[in-house]
């Protein structure tokens, strides 16, 4: 028998960034808000305290901060005619858990989409004709424009304390910024991070190769910063323990560093941890959410009624919840009907390793988004007509750290172990760098999420099943952009002693880490026939249910998703606070 709690105004599923933003903003209007987080309470102190957090084995390899796959995981297959099997280790992407969610252990790379990304389908058809798109490519326009989103990008950047060099501000181009980025209404809140040798080498070479390098916008504060909520952040000390680790310095943007100090003391906000939401509950007519059902830390089933439900879990978990709750029509890849689970996408990565004689990189001086990049080969930055693929990538040299287990590189010929490998490592550790090609991932008919027919999680619910493989379009794109990265390497000074290119090859392998950028499955659009949510993240079928997150992306563009999902969350909040609360109903 379920325990029924006293109704509240808003219930937030998950307590990562999207729910933290929602809770902070909606409590300002005096609403009673409850957030339910399946994982534990985490705070900078004591969970990310120096120096204990700087433990690569514990956090980087054994995933102390991430999801326990023995409780819940997903099943995976490349193709529909295969049987999906449970993912038993974290590999290609790192599912998070706990207060703060994935922004606890991200790197901080904070990009805006390009203006044309938001209407990529129309853009491609206008330029290249409908036949240019492969038959099974199902990309869509987002149903929102960059211009609409711009002030919310800025808000998110001012929340996080993004350090960067603006390109175009109110129509005027600033030297040193990204000439391909959309126009901004204001500069970044903080100046860019300091340069290091590796990023300077990239900068010079990229210019020599005729490209336009700029510092990457970073959620690692380049100086102490007080954000738009009055929360103070420290300045990054370049410890080199960003991705997979919490930040001990309050200098990497996260819900803990940016929001919780003002949210947690509020009397109209309550957080319950150790509470796994299993279902979003619907009224009998299926057109209204009445609250959620969850399992509390004692194993009790509890119902929390609410007028408004914010489904702020991680992208793939949002989709799993919608499917398990019977919301919307599940996507059927056979017939093409249904939208929930459709258009799952990822990221297509390639790289070039560059080895020098006697350069000094000091790679341990790292920050998660310390890098120099070019956008010259981005999704909407160049002419694809002769190349036969859509999409693009940014090319970047990062210096995120020099950790011994995961962040060293050695030439292929050195092997992976033994005396020869050790010698090669000693030689290359301090005098090598990489150029990464961080590429887009289009949407396809056969790349989708649904519920697994066989495997269940610890709560008896079907696991999410991921069906995904690289398509030729994206592999071709990645080869093209990785070749461009090779050109940059070849232009580097001093002359490298060795350049090794790593092209992405199919099939998609879920084992080696690539990115934690899982998108789609509850996509946004301006037409309920072809999307799950509208531009306010509002579920067409259930207007008091909002699903913010990268699950809303109709396909994945060539940049990291965080800033865009953050901006969409603020856009959603704006719609809720200024219109929905007074007149509940569809906002579009």
């Amino acid at each position, binding site marked *: 028998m379920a325990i029924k709690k006293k109704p509240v105004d808003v219930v937030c599923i998950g307590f990562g960034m999207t729910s933290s933003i929602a809770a902070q903003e909606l409590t300002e209007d005096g609403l009673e808000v409850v957030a339910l987080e399946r994982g534990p*309470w985490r705070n900078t102190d004591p969970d990310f*305290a120096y120096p204990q957090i700087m433990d690569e084995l514990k956090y980087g390899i054994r995933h102390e901060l991430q999801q326990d796959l023995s409780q819940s995981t997903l099943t995976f297959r490349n193709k529909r005619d295969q049987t999906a099997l449970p993912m038993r280790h974290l590999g290609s992407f790192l599912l998070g858990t706990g207060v703060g969610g994935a922004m606890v252990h991200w790197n901080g790379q904070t990009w805006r989409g390009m203006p044309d990304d938001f209407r990529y389908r129309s853009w491609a058809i206008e330029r290249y004709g409908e036949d240019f798109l492969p038959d099974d490519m199902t990309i869509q326009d987002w149903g929102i424009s960059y211009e609409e989103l711009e002030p919310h990008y800025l808000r998110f950047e001012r929340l996080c304390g993004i350090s960067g060099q603006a390109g175009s501000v109110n129509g005027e181009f600033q030297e040193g910024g990204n000439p391909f980025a959309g126009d901004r209404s204001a500069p970044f809140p903080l100046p860019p991070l300091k340069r290091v040798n590796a990023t300077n080498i990239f900068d010079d070479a990229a210019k020599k190769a005729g490209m336009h390098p700029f510092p990457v916008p970073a959620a690692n504060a380049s100086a102490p910063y007080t954000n738009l909520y009055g929360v103070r*952040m420290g300045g990054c000390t370049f410890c080199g323990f960003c991705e997979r680790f919490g930040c*001990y310095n309050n200098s990497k943007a996260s819900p803990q560093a940016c929001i919780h100090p003002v949210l947690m003391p*509020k009397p109209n906000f309550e957080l319950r941890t150790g509470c796994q939401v299993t279902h979003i509950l619907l009224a009998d007519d299926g057109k209204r959410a009445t609250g959620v059902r969850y399992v509390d830390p004692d194993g009790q089933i509890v119902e929390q009624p609410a007028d408004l439900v914010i489904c702020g879990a991680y992208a793939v978990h949002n989709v799993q919840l919608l499917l398990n709750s019977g919301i919307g029509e599940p996507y059927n890849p056979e017939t093409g009907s249904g939208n929930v689970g459709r258009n799952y996408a990822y990221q297509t990565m390639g790289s070039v390793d560059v080895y020098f004689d006697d350069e000094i990189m000091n790679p341990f001086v790292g920050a998660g988004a310390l890098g120099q990049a070019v956008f010259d080969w981005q999704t909407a930055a160049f002419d694809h007509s002769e190349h036969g693929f859509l999409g693009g990538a940014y090319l970047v040299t990062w210096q995120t750290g020099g950790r011994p287990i995961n962040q060293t590189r050695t030439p292929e010929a050195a092997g992976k172990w033994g005396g020869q490998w050790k010698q090669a490592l000693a030689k290359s550790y301090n005098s090598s760098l990489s150029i990464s090609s961080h590429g887009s991932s289009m949407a396809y008919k056969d790349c989708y999420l649904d519920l697994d027919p066989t495997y269940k999680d610890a709560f008896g619910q079907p696991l999410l099943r991921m069906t995904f493989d690289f398509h030729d379009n994206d592999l071709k794109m990645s080869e093209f952009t990785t070749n461009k990265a090779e050109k940059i390497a070849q232009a580097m000074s001093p002359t490298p002693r060795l350049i090794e290119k790593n092209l992405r090859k199919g099939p998609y392998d879920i084992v080696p880490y690539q990115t934690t950028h899982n998108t789609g499955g509850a996509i946004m659009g301006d037409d309920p026939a072809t999307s799950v949510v509208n531009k306010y993240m509002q579920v067409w079928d259930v207007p008091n249910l909002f699903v913010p997150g990268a699950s809303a992306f109709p396909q994945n563009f060539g940049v990291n998703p965080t800033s865009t999902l953050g901006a969409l969350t603020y856009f959603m909040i704006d719609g809720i606070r200024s219109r929905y609360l007074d007149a509940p109903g569809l906002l579009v």
Partner: protein
Amino acid sequence: MGQHTLSWMTALLVLLLAGAATSALAQQYSQAEPVELAVSAEALDSADGDTIRRGAYLARAADCTACHTASDGPPYAGGFAFETPFGTLYSSNITPDAEHGIGDWTQAEFTTALRQGVGKDGKHLYPAMPYTAYTHLSDEDVEALWTYFQHVEPQAVPNERNELMWPFSWRAAMWGWNLLFLDDGRFEPDPQQSDRWNRGAYLVTGPGHCGSCHTPRNLAMARKTDQAFMGHSIQGWHAPRLPAGEGTSDAPGLADWPENEIVQFLQTGAASRSAATGTMKEAIHDSLQYLTEDDLRAIATYLKSLRYEDGETVIATAPTGDNSGLSPSVASRPAQSGTAQAIRIGKMPPPAVPIGDGHGGVTAGERLFMDNCQACHLQGQGMPGAFPALVNNSATAQDDPSNLIKVILQGAQGVQTQQDPTVLTMPDFAWRLNDKQVATLASYVRERFGERAPERAQVSPEQVAELREQVHPPEPDAGH
């Protein structure tokens, strides 16, 4: 008064002040409280509402909740335990509950308790209750406090019996102590001073009872009024001196800070040159953050008028200037090295003075600093707005190294206030550095950033060992 009594009172004072939250090293958020603690909206809207608000504000200024609220108890219901080597003392229930609280007290009895330390039926209170300061409270303020406490939510929490050894359990002994040390009387404004100064003097010497921690004590554990605010050590924490003047070359007083910084410090526990440590954090959290900006400025005005001259604390005829935050004695020192000057103005200095022992090596102190401290405190300028500077820092500059040693051992956390809710944390190093290492590091920091001559900067491993015993190792977070 005998030796036993004095050490008992020391212990009492020690534990009174060190008591509540020093073991809670893992940072948990506490819910925001209104200024008017534990009174209903109806009471605030009633005919007595204005008086109740005034009383509630004064209760914040006097910080009644610090002692009269147990850590897991309802407001003002008492039960806060003062562990002394001679037994345990419990604070009393001051809610208007008729049976267990002060519900059956008269206003006169309440007034006598506040000002003379004598409770109902003539029962003497122990001077853990700072009635020697509260005696300054005006009639109007006592009346407001009385009205407030009549409307506080009653709690039927029985008073714990004190468990004190005889003769400390003999309350009547306080009669003698009061005769010697209670200077019973209302605050008298000084007509030569501004209204603002007088308000500050009233707040500091009356409800704020700052001297209870900051004024040294005599053998009978009463405050040495001629040494007012010249600092006092309590269980390893040092409540620093406040006045400017003599001796500030070694230990600058708060009086030298710019007024804005004093206000910011009292409001939030953080300023560019210091972060509140020890029980000052509770004072800020429970009391000072609720004071109006005007009152905080008044306090700053009063404090900045204090000087120590010819061996006693006096009021200066002209208030201490700001001098960019440097005490006059510090500012007038011979020119410092380029490094020190660069640090002073907050620039990242190039090593104008070579770091090292001159033989290409790095001293042990420098090594320890680089490996443990430099990442956040940089070259001593810290990160303004985030991590305190170490130059002109009250912990590094104090003659008494206790605060510095304790902070190295057990780390530090900011205070969660409504003005500044962010709590930044300095990690602890007790587990990582032994006594000799902490001593070497502290000596280095005091020499380099406290700007002392090496022989005056020295801290011994024995000093560290003594303080280490008092440090609670960090507790794992037990979940929210």
